């Protein structure tokens, strides 16, 4: 750059300023300093160091524009004294011989520029007079540049500090700047979010905001046009992470849906209950009239079985839709109930061994007998379905002082890890449609809680799943 022109005596201060302004705009700060320094060194035939003196908070920072940053509070009084001498050498980390510290700016600002002149023949202050105008322009420019740099650094830190992604992008989605890194190569903004094409509903050039759903999450994008260059429009995009919010929202929707489904299921179940009762009762009364050996009798029995199965599903739906049904508390022997329940599952248990414990004496628990029966029924039915009619179901009883724990384990391979959190969720099922409503375990768990007990999934053992029923013990 032609810094020589600065000395043109025909130039007005305004011209000099705009020349410097141009220099500052088109060159990097470091380049510019080197140029100014070279210019001055040629002019003055001595070594020149530009020193910037400016406050940072309560400290005063001295900055050599050509050497290391010097951080020490010191007030320079233009002419060197021995203290300044030592301080300079210390700060610049090199010996400093004969020198002149020349204050360039005469501004009232707290920021000041000094020239450190060193050499065999140090110019006198008077001999610098002809450079005064240029030096003042240089110093002003330096200070302005300094401020700009500070401000830009502040903005950059602010920008980088923001927890939400902020991207500056071109119209063609090319990323110019980001507080997330990745602006070095030619990256597209959507690639930052793991997409391979522009996100659906991207507001770029179209509007002020959009909702994007990406592999990195869901974001509300605020887009604003930045007028920084003429040839291409730039946009600043602020991304507000909505992933958690969306999750919460969909959970809410899900639970509302569940409630609605529950009510609907409940009313449908009620409507169906009557005709089903009729089907079963009518088939039963037909069966009463038919001799047992009549081939059609077995068909009617099939119809009756189907009606009973349907009624069970309906009872489950009703228990789910209208929970907390008051069941009278009874005292009963759980093993006796289990023994009475097994025949109801005769068909499902074909090929399955059921191991029941043998206890000395009677064991009594408190709760609802029919509720407990339904829970046992569900657990054993689940186990037999998962084992596909071969394997072993073991029932173990652990009586305690206050509680009785009944463990039901199977050899069906266990509950997959991914399902373990969900098995008590209503309508969660892995069964074929028609085989189950996904209500068995959630209703069972609810019923056990209602009677002051609990139903827990203990985990998988080597062979299969282990469930544990807890009931309150009754003194025998």
């Amino acid at each position, binding site marked *: 750059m032609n810094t020589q022109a600065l000395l043109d005596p025909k130039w007005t201060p305004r011209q000099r300023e705009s020349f410097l302004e141009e220099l500052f705009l088109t060159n990097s700060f470091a380049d510019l300093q080197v140029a100014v320094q070279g210019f001055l060194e040629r002019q003055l035939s001595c070594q020149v160091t530009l020193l910037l003196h400016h406050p940072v908070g309560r400290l005063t920072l001295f900055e050599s524009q050509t050497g290391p940053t010097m951080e020490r509070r010191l007030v320079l009084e233009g002419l060197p004294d021995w203290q300044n001498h030592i301080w300079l050498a210390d700060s610049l980390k090199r010996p400093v011989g004969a020198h002149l510290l020349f204050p360039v700016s005469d501004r009232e600002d707290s920021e000041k520029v000094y020239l450190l002149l060193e050499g065999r023949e140090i110019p006198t202050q008077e001999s610098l007079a002809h450079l005064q105008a240029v030096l003042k322009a240089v110093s002003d420019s330096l200070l302005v540049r300094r401020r700009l740099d500070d401000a830009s650094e502040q903005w950059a830190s602010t920008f980088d500090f923001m927890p939400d992604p902020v991207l500056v992008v071109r119209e063609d989605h090319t990323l110019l700047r980001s507080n997330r890194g990745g602006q070095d190569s030619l990256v597209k903004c959507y690639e930052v979010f793991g997409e391979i094409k522009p996100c659906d509903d991207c507001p770029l050039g179209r509007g002020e905001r959009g909702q994007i759903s990406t592999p990195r999450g869901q974001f509300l994008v605020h887009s604003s046009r930045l007028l920084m260059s003429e040839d291409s429009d730039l946009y600043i995009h602020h991304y507000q992470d909505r992933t958690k919010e969306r999750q919460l929202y969909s959970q809410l929707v899900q639970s509302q849906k569940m409630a609605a489904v529950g009510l609907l299921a409940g009313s449908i179940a009620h409507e169906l209950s009557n005709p089903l*009762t009729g089907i079963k009762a009518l088939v039963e009364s037909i069966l009463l009239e038919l001799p047992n050996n009549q081939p059609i009798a077995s068909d009617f029995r099939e119809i009756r079985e189907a009606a009973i199965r349907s009624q069970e599903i309906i009872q489950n739906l009703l228990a789910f839709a209208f929970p907390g049904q008051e069941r009278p508390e009874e005292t009963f022997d759980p093993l006796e109930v289990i023994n009475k329940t097994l025949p109801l599952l005769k068909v499902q248990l074909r090929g399955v061994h059921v191991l029941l414990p043998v206890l000395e004496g009677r064991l009594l628990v408190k709760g609802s007998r029919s509720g407990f029966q339904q829970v046992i029924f569900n657990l054993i039915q689940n186990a037999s379905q998962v084992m596909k009619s071969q394997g072993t179901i073991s029932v173990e009883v652990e009586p305690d002082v206050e509680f009785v724990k009944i463990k039901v384990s199977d050899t069906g391979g266990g509950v997959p890890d991914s399902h373990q959190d969900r098995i008590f969720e209503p309508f969660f099922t892995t069964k074929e449609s028609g085989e189950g409503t996904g209500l068995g375990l959630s209703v069972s768990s609810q019923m056990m809680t209602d009677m002051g007990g609990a139903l827990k999934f203990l985990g998988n053992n080597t062979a299969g799943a282990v469930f544990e029923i807890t009931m309150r013990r009754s003194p025998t």
Partner: protein
Amino acid sequence: MKILIAEDEPLIRRSLDRALTKVGHQVLTAQDGELALELWKQGPPDVAILDVLLPKMTGPEVVLAVRQALGSVSSTRIVLMTAYASSEEWSEIRPDLFLKKPFEDILTVVRRIEELHRG
């Protein structure tokens, strides 16, 4: 014995009719409360089996209307059927038997109705 069945669900009505006729009872059926009341007035049955939620008149309303018209229904045993749990509203009726839907086996239902008459 003479049994009146008031039930709007045709399958339930028919199954009770069939099973009770089969074991030798005289059965009258009605699909709504008004018809039930009409049949009752023509000659009190030994047992009246009434669904609670009947069209036109509910089962309990039929019983109350009979009591008002005939002064007493003491000769007739009253059976109320419903899918809902019993409530205060029907306790005034004091049914001799309360049948919760869904029923158990129809044979059991028939046996309980017959026991009612004997007892």
